[in-house]
């Protein structure tokens, strides 16, 4: 996530600082109480260093940070690190007290610290990641007021700190002797995933399930860790920093955590005698974590998904050896995918506008729509922005003017075909054919949906008029099957012929190439999809390759009409407005494809589907895909793929705007 000025402003509010003044010491007392082995608050512990406004980001969203106080203390010549969140004050109401305590770091001795990775970008927040000898890592600690260099300098005064030969930003704290630790150090974690991410707060029932599974099957994947080469990340933000091979390491790290914890569980009947090295674990999370682990032991199937998953595998793994998923979407979305918010309402939307109606921060608006969609009544006002019909910096008055001008222009365009007399039509084959095609399609587009149902439905006629007008407006592209699928929800939302037309025109500016005669727009997207699958699920890619499925034509319908036939009407609208924000990527729809394919990967490979079976299977997924979790997976995959993902998508791939204007719609002999 880039750090825009507005976000920085948002984060520079004083609430946390004020809280730190009032609450800091109290919360430390609270968190440390009852821990016999914790030395930090003992009278003989010497305070070495104290830094306020050090925050962690439980998700990739800076707005959901938890701020707290970082401390270094020394006792019996051992240096301890602790980070205590401020109590009671919050930048985000969604974060509960429990979330805070989950991430609390209470007095970790530096003898258990493997390394500290620092990141001090010229612009943006500095942070450090503390990696333990166990392989666990704490979430990045953001120094909101700067001071990473000072922090490291102080650490260096008290423990042996050596700069890694392989990465100048990694400082090794300990020298390792054990083979396990050598293995870990050879991984050269470029950064690490949060320790507490496995205990990400529940958000509606599924994430507990997810988190159980997330670590249930990591045991098998150690061997696949090295399939990705080492790569240094230069990005300034750790959420971008996390590369694909890092996810492998995440699995590894989680495995170590689980193994160790399981061991503890088997050796201890209660929590009182837990080894002191685990004191950095959040107190409140123990029972949950342990019970999860107990359950996990019974989940031998490596590819079980959510219980309500319609494409759940059944005893497939027993028959066919399905290669492991290098990136489990459950795990990814757990870490990165963000739960959707309620749809944006009018009041909230109005807050994005200045007094004259300009959208002040279009990115913030798009972000809001991305994470929650729009209340239906408001869609007709927001969709024109998303589609590019309205400019974000236009005023109320300018938009009013635009509408009236465009209405006249539409009437002129419509008049072009309306003025064709029957006699002229007789001599105008292309027109007759085109009109015939549109007539055939509009009467069978969403007729079960109430807005278009019934005989002599006027909305069906309006849809016909718009499509015919469009085929004159863009005579080269004309009409193509699938266009009515796009227009139907637009007309339903806009409830105005001219406005619907111009929104449709704006959409076709980006998606028109889907309907090119040479199929070029589709081929480009299918190609990009194959590259993304290769990047994000190499075994699945290889499977498609071996089975002559690399053309990805089984995803043709998904891409051509952006999943219109895969979801019910309302869900389609929700998905489209998310896609149209272009918030993380213009090509999120391709990541949606990857997300769905990954959800089905073990079924596809386990049942050895060939192309025919695959196409049938994919078509029959229609109506059985859960939108919310799919979008969340897609977001996680998109973030995870990062620049490599973007590089997999050739420039100009729809819905990117065309690179140039020459021959937008290459013609062949037949112009129909």
């Amino acid at each position: 996530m880039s750090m825009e000025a507005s976000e920085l402003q948002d984060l520079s509010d004083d609430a946390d600082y004020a809280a730190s003044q009032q609450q800091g010491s109290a919360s430390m007392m609270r968190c440390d109480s009852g821990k016999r082995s914790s030395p930090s608050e003992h009278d003989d512990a010497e305070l070495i260093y104290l830094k306020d406004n050090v925050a962690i980001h439980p998700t990739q969203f800076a707005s959901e940070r938890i701020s707290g106080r970082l401390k270094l203390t020394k006792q019996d010549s051992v240096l301890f690190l602790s980070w205590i969140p401020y109590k009671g004050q919050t930048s985000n109401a969604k974060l509960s007290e429990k979330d805070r305590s989950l991430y609390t770091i209470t007095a970790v001795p530096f003898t258990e610290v493997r390394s500290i990775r620092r990141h001090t970008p010229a612009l943006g927040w500095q942070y450090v990641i503390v990696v333990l000898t166990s392989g666990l890592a704490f979430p990045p600690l953001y120094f909101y007021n700067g001071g990473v260099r000072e922090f490291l300098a102080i650490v260096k005064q008290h423990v042996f700190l050596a700069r890694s030969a392989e990465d100048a930003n990694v400082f090794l704290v300990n020298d390792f002797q054990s083979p396990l630790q050598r293995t870990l150090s050879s991984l050269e974690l470029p950064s690490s995933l949060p320790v507490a991410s496995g205990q990400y707060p529940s958000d509606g029932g599924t994430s507990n399930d997810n988190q159980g599974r997330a670590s249930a099957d990591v045991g098998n994947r150690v061997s696949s860790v090295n399939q990705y080469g080492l790569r240094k990340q230069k990005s300034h933000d750790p959420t971008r920093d996390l590369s694909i091979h890092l996810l492998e390491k995440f699995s590894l790290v989680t495995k170590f955590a689980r193994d160790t914890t399981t061991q503890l569980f088997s050796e201890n009947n209660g929590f009182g005698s837990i080894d002191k090295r685990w004191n950095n674990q959040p107190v409140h999370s123990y029972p949950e974590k342990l019970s999860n682990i107990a359950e996990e032991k019974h989940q031998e199937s490596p590819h079980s998904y959510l219980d309500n998953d319609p494409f759940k595998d059944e005893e497939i793994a027993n028959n066919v050896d399905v290669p492991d998923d290098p990136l489990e979407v459950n795990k990814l979305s757990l870490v990165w995918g963000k739960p959707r918010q309620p749809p944006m309402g009018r009041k909230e939307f109005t807050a994005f506008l200045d007094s004259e109606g300009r959208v002040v921060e279009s990115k913030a608006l798009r972000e809001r729509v991305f994470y929650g969609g729009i209340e239906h009544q408001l869609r007709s006002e927001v969709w024109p922005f998303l589609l590019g019909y309205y400019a974000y910096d236009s005023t109320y008055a300018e938009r009013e003017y635009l509408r009236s001008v465009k209405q006249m222009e539409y009437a002129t365009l419509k008049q072009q075909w309306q003025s064709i007399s029957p006699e002229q039509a007789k001599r105008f084959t292309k027109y007759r054919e085109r009109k015939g095609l549109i007539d055939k399609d509009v009467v069978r587009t969403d007729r079960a949906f109430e807005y278009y149902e019934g005989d002599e439905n006027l909305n069906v006629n309006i849809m016909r008029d718009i499509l015919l007008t469009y085929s004159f407006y863009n005579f080269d592209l004309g009409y193509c099957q699938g266009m009515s699928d796009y227009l139907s929800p637009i007309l339903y939302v806009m409830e105005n012929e001219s406005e619907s037309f111009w929104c449709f025109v704006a959409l076709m500016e980006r998606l028109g190439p889907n309907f090119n005669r040479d199929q070029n727009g589709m081929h480009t997207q299918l190609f990009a999809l194959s590259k993304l699958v290769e990047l994000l699920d190499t075994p699945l890619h290889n499977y498609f390759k071996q089975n002559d499925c690399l053309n990805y034509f089984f995803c043709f319908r998904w891409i051509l009409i952006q999943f219109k036939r895969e979801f019910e009407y309302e869900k389609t609208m929700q998905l489209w407005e998310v896609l149209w924000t272009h918030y993380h990527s213009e090509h999120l729809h391709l990541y949606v494809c990857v997300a769905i394919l990954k959800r089905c990967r073990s079924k596809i490979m386990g049942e050895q589907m060939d192309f025919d079976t695959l196409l049938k299977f994919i078509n029959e997924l229609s109506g059985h895909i859960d939108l919310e979790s799919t979008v969340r997976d897609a977001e996680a995959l998109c973030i995870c793929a990062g620049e490599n993902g973007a590089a997999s998508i050739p420039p100009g791939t729809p819905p990117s705007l065309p690179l140039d204007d020459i021959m937008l719609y290459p013609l062949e002999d037949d112009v129909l």
Partner: protein
Amino acid sequence: MATSGNKNINAKLVLLGDVGAGKSSLVLRFVKDQFVEFQESTIGAAFFSQTLAVNDATVKFEIWDTAGQERYHSLAPMYYRGAAAAIIVFDITNQASFERAKKWVQELQAQGNPNMVMALAGNKADLLDARKVSAEEAEIYAQENSLFFMETSAKTATNVKDIFYEIAKRLPRVQPAENPTGMVLPNGPGATAVSSSCCA
């Protein structure tokens, strides 16, 4: 022709024809015995399977239903390549759809499997009042081109099962093993009708 005992045959079948001729409706009637007045247009292609018992054999049809618009023509070879049978569908109330059907026949004769069983279906036979293509005209064309012709109605189910049954009867029962482009294969373990069907 048929060997003794039960014989299972997989046969790839493709439906081709003009927009709105009723390809999807024919399949839906055959596979699910359903009819939808406003059957939505087919995007890309759809795949179905349905099994018919013919004499002592069982024919499992693997049916490819394609999009009708000329613009998607370039995708068609992907679907008809390797097909053992084709149903070319036109709408008896639409002369242009009949002309389009003829073009499909020509293309299959030029590009397709020479042993392909081809059927010509004059669909919407229930709409007699709106008829534009006479049964005689279509029958003559079919005979000239070694097709068999039936008028069908997906709406009333007239002749729908029959046309598939007729195709099944005409499928070659014994497939030379040395023919790698075989269109009909015995349904052995893991055998599928066509393994090369998804090559671009």
